[in-house]
């Protein structure tokens, strides 16, 4: 039996807004989730139930009020909520990818370099990195004329595809997908679905949020209802 | 120290003298001598001293005059030059001053002098064992133009952190393609202390290296004394690819034909006529007396040198 790529234990998240009379906003509590390699767990539940909060907590971007998030990194389970900053950054660099709806545009860096950068960071040779970047940019049908430009001036859909290229070129063992197809047309959505499926076939573990039901049905191996763990207000 | 003086022009050592011998009182001379000894013991290190008010303004040689006053005795033979010449106003005045207050013989002959006070030059004739060269220094701190904080420059000297001095040489090469600084060119004394020679031309820097004479430097306004004892290594700073070099001239001296001395350019009229002559007037006169003659030998300028020293 294979072991999980992500194990969320007894996770609780409560926001305390100190500057608004210490208002406490509970989101979820005692949440437990395991994701196996090759699985794509799609988070379900109505808006505001805490799907994005859970994703961000798994990524180490939000600090949980209790519990742990264990990610398989270099063959060992590491609790990202307890890890030192440099360990979290290393996990994010080599194991845990996050595809959001928005590209954090870095001015002045060309599209091609943006896609190549994560490969170089992980020690892939410059030649191979270029090769893989070209392949994925072609797959995503991003016009070659755009490759040498920084994506700041691209349309929303183009930026989104750069973002996806940047994340999928890495072949992260664990991927968090927060509405990666939100601003794409049908043809491009299909391409992204294919990318996701290919990554799953290679054994990536994924947690995703998809509002587009077609995409969700195409990629989900199971649904996970965050509202089952709704914290008592 | 003794009874109130009555006759200002009495012989220098007489009881009736208005001023103490060599102008400064004995305690001040002792203080300066102690500073000189310390300066000789730590070659190149700037020793603070209690600079006195002198009867000339700062910038006219107050540091050098105090050094001379502290070391001079009746048996000394005193020479004073300014810009290499014995006959300039400042040199003549200071020479008269010591002839009056210290009762010493004066000379223009470099070889005959025991104390040579100077600003801007070291004589061309090699200095000898037993001679003392006294320099009048306007700014003793070579790093001052680059680092205004005294606390910081002192730390730099204490820890021999002299990288900063190279910045000025670097600037020179960037701007002029060579190390252009002509005067006060920084030197390292015995590979330890960075020192600014009084504003002598870098032409004279090599004369300080392993010099048999004692070199004393005095800055009156800045209240610092420093020294190079005899036979001390004095190295001019440079870069590996821009080695130190001295000025050179295409001409020889117009009066004495010397090719190995530091030349001054003298503008003769408004017709673009000029001549290059030895800056060291004694050196030039000596050579002419030996029969050397340059292309403009006999020019009226030569006669100015013939006024005898007092």
């Amino acid at each position: 039996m294979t072991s999980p790529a992500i194990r969320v234990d007894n996770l609780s998240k409560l926001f305390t807004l100190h500057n608004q009379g210490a208002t406490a906003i509970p989101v979820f509590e005692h949440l437990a989730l395991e994701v196996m390699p090759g699985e794509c767990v799609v988070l379900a539940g109505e808006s505001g139930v805490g799907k994005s909060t859970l994703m961000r907590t798994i990524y180490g971007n939000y600090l949980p009020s209790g519990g742990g998030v264990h990610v398989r990194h270099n063959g060992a389970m590491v609790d990202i909520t307890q890890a030192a900053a440099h360990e979290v950054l290393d996990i994010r660099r080599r194991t845990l990818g996050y595809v959001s709806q928005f590209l954090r545009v870095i001015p002045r860096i060309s599209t091609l370099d943006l896609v190549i950068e994560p490969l170089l960071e992980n020690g892939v040779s410059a030649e191979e990195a270029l090769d893989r970047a070209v392949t994925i940019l072609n797959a995503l049908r991003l016009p070659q004329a755009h490759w040498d430009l920084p994506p700041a001036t691209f349309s929303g859909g183009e930026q989104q595809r750069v973002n996806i290229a940047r994340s999928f070129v890495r072949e992260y063992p664990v991927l968090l997908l927060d509405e990666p197809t939100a601003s794409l047309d049908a043809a491009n959505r299909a391409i992204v679905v294919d990318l996701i499926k290919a990554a799953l076939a290679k054994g990536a573990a994924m947690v995703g949020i998809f509002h587009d039901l077609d995409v969700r049905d195409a990629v989900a191996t199971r649904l996970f209802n965050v509202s089952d763990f709704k914290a008592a207000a | 120290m003794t009874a109130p003086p009555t006759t200002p022009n009495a012989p220098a050592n007489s009881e009736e003298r208005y001023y103490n011998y060599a102008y400064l009182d004995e305690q001040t001379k002792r203080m300066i001598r102690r500073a000189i000894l310390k300066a000789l013991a730590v070659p190149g290190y700037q020793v603070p001293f209690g600079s006195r008010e002198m009867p000339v303004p700062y910038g006219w040689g107050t540091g050098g005059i105090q050094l001379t006053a502290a070391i001079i005795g009746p048996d000394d033979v005193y020479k004073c030059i300014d810009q290499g010449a014995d006959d300039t106003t400042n040199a003549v005045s200071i020479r008269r001053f010591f002839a009056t207050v210290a009762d010493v013989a004066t000379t223009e002959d470099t070889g005959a002098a025991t104390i040579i006070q100077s600003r801007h030059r070291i004589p061309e004739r090699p200095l000898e064992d037993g001679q003392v060269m006294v320099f009048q220094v306007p700014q003793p701190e070579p790093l001052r133009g680059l680092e205004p904080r005294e606390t910081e420059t002192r730390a730099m000297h204490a820890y021999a952190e002299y990288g900063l001095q190279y910045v000025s040489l670097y600037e020179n090469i960037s701007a002029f393609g060579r190390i252009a600084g002509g005067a006060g060119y920084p030197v390292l004394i015995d590979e330890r202390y960075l020192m600014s020679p009084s504003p002598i031309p870098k032409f004279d820097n090599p004369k300080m290296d392993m010099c048999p004479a004692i070199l004393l430097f005095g800055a009156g306004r800045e209240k610092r004394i420093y020294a190079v004892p005899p036979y001390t290594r004095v190295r001019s700073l440079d870069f590996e690819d821009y080695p130190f070099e001295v000025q050179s001239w295409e001409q020889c001296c117009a009066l004495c034909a010397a090719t190995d001395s530091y030349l001054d350019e003298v503008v003769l009229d408004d017709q673009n006529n000029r001549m290059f002559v030895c800056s060291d007037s004694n050196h030039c006169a000596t050579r002419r007396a030996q029969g050397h003659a340059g292309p403009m030998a006999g020019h009226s300028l030569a006669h100015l040198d013939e006024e005898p020293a007092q």
Partner: protein
Amino acid sequence: MSLTALSTAESVPADVPLLRVAGLTKMYGHLPGCLDVSFEMRAGEVLGIVGESGSGKTTLLNCISGKLPPTCGSIAFNARRHGLTDIYALSEPDRRRMQREDWGFVHQNPRDGLRMRVSGGANVAEPLMNLGQRHYGAMRSATTDWLGRVELDLARVDDKPRNFSGGMQQRIQIARNLIHNPRLVFMDEPTGGLDVSVQARLLDLLRELVRDMGLAAIIVTHDMAVARLMADRLMVMKGGHVVETGLADQVLDDPQHPYTQLLVSSVLQI
């Protein structure tokens, strides 16, 4: 960003911290500067120190960078010559040499970090001369290379800093503080006095250089955008205390301490 890192700070063993600050307190008489600050930094890490004016961040930076002896506590730095050593236990010449060799310090005001009387090029070359380089040609080409990396017009290499704009002065200062390949660079509001467009370009350049060189840096700023762009990790200071510390994006996106929440929510959205 260049595809190949031009130079990489030589690696410090991962298990030895680059910097270890323990129980650092600085009192000004009975007024606290910073109180009981402890943290560690690793090679290649960028630490942001944020907080409002008077929160103690500059005091902390000055203590760590050897300019201001702390009242109590220790600062150990992994120096090339000495290994992990308490910087205030070193003799003054050793400490000064360590500062020249292993550190850079980018001041908010270029006037504090540059020699205004010497040319931009000589300002950049000075750290090499301080480390004993005596070959003009080699230093000149290193300087030219660095002025190119900070995107300055090479035709102006011999101009004095006062003839440069604020942003250009800051670029000279950055080149001057990186040319000797330091292990740790301190930056005190490096883009503080600049207008917004210049600030953005400069930050972007700094970010690239820090990543390319694998530099460790401590950046003091009150600007949350600077903190987000530059820092891996943040320390939030208030009244001399560190009130919150953590991964930069976590501190900014999910701040825990009331003061951090106030600080983050006070940022104007455009």
